[in-house]
């Protein structure tokens, strides 16, 4: 934070776009600023509304050279923008150097990225020394705009000032404009907790939920909660499925009709790929859960009430599939969120329940709460 830790004393802030750059259509500027505010809105109780005239908390403008604050811009390159910490008058304001070539794309100087950074200052964050952080002072070009996520460092910083998003607001729906549900930090001991996906990774177990995952390792009794983006910045949140092929030291993660391969903390080149390259028919839009049998080198994909089997050796879907889940995994709920193999059992996660399935006896041996793995 800035010296003295200045922050807004209210959670609803106003902003005004005072003028526009000629580099972009007005709508593109509006969208970039709105998206940049959304980055911070998602992880705090803060809300924003736009003003078209008068003095807003955050006044956003484009300027060149000396522009009235004794911190002149310097032409193309070098300084891209600056912003002031929370407070009255010029404080909280954001200035962009209009000698830059502002773009909506990864090439050039992307307005959204710079705006998200500067708005971090306007909310009270100073520069971070963490090169992964949005608040790192040096501009980096991002290859994949869609995959942008705040780092844990940014989230920790802003939540130090304003706290986490509050539950009542998440459920609040304005009479005229619906507010999309936001991703709050999941509570591991919430009795209703469900997982998006579960996978092993080099002997650890990862439990994915929204933008986060719990990491249960041999080295720590307490599962640690991390942002997916802090390990794999280009991966999406709200995953559908994940599984490890330990012989390839690779975890495959699925969302929608795409999947990615990650090795350690590196997303492999050539991904994402389309799930239909695995042999699924075009009617399959997403995978619910997946697990790889390392002995037989087969991967099981669960989709609605059926499952498919993929041969890792021939890299092809096996004939005779899909089959109904209930035929071969009797007692398991047909809609599977995630599946994990441990201690010779398969653990099927479905909502807040977890079914321990003995593959030899072909029956469910226990039913637990989903979060039993998180020591709840």
């Amino acid at each position, binding site marked *: 934070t800035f010296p003295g830790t200045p922050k807004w004393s209210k959670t609803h802030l106003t902003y005004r776009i005072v003028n526009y750059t000629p580099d972009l259509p007005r709508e593109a500027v509006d969208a970039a600023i709105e998206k940049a505010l959304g980055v911070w809105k998602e992880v705090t109780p803060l809300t924003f509304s736009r003003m078209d005239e008068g003095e807003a908390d955050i006044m956003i403008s484009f300027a060149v050279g000396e522009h009235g604050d004794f911190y002149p811009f310097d032409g193309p390159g070098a300084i891209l*923008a*600056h912003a002031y910490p929370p407070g009255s008058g010029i404080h909280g304001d954001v200035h962009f150097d209009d000698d830059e070539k502002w773009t909506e794309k990864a090439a050039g100087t992307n307005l959204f990225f710079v705006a998200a*950074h500067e708005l971090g200052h306007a909310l009270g964050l100073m*520069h971070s020394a963490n090169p992964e952080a949005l608040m790192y*002072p040096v*501009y980096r070009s991002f290859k994949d705009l869609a995959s942008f996520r705040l780092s844990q460092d940014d989230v920790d910083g802003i939540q130090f000032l304003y706290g986490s998003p509050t539950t009542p607001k998440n459920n609040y729906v304005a009479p005229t404009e619906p507010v999309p549900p936001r991703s709050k930090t999941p509570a591991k001991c919430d009795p209703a907790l469900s997982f998006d996906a579960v996978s092993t990774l080099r002997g650890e177990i990862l439990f994915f939920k929204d933008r986060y995952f719990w990491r249960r390792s041999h080295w720590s009794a307490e599962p640690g909660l991390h942002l997916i983006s802090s390990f794999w910045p280009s991966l999406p949140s709200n995953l559908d499925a994940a599984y490890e092929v330990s012989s390839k030291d690779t975890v495959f993660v699925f969302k929608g009709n795409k999947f990615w391969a990650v090795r350690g903390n590196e997303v492999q080149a050539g991904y994402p790929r389309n799930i239909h390259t695995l042999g699924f028919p075009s009617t399959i839009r997403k995978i619910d859960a997946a697990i790889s049998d390392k002995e037989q080198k087969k991967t099981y994909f669960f989709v609605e009430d059926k499952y498919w089997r993929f041969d890792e050796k021939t890299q092809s879907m096996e004939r005779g599939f899909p089959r109904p889940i209930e035929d071969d995994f009797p007692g398991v709920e047909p809609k599977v969120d995630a599946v994990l193999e441990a201690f010779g059992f398969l653990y099927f996660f479905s909502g807040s329940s977890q079914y321990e399935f003995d593959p030899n006896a072909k029956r469910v041996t226990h039913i637990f709460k989903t979060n039993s793995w998180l020591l709840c």
Partner: protein
Amino acid sequence: YPVNGDREEEDSNMDLVQRYLENYYNLTKKVENIYRRRDSSPIDNKIREMQKFLGLEVTGKLDSSTLEMIRKPRCGVPDVGHFT
């Protein structure tokens, strides 16, 4: 053949880093010439501070990776201290 070419480039780089340290690392302007003439350690210390903050190898010297970082586009808000 420019006899003083290297020296001129060195001076220009030194000016660049001094401006950078003044703008972003709270290096005091009025004593800059004293630093340059008599004692370079305050500036070396500021270079170290900057290298540490930006995740560079901490040498206290104006090496190529430090110069490259200084030339990258960035936010105008200081890394250390405040707008003055």
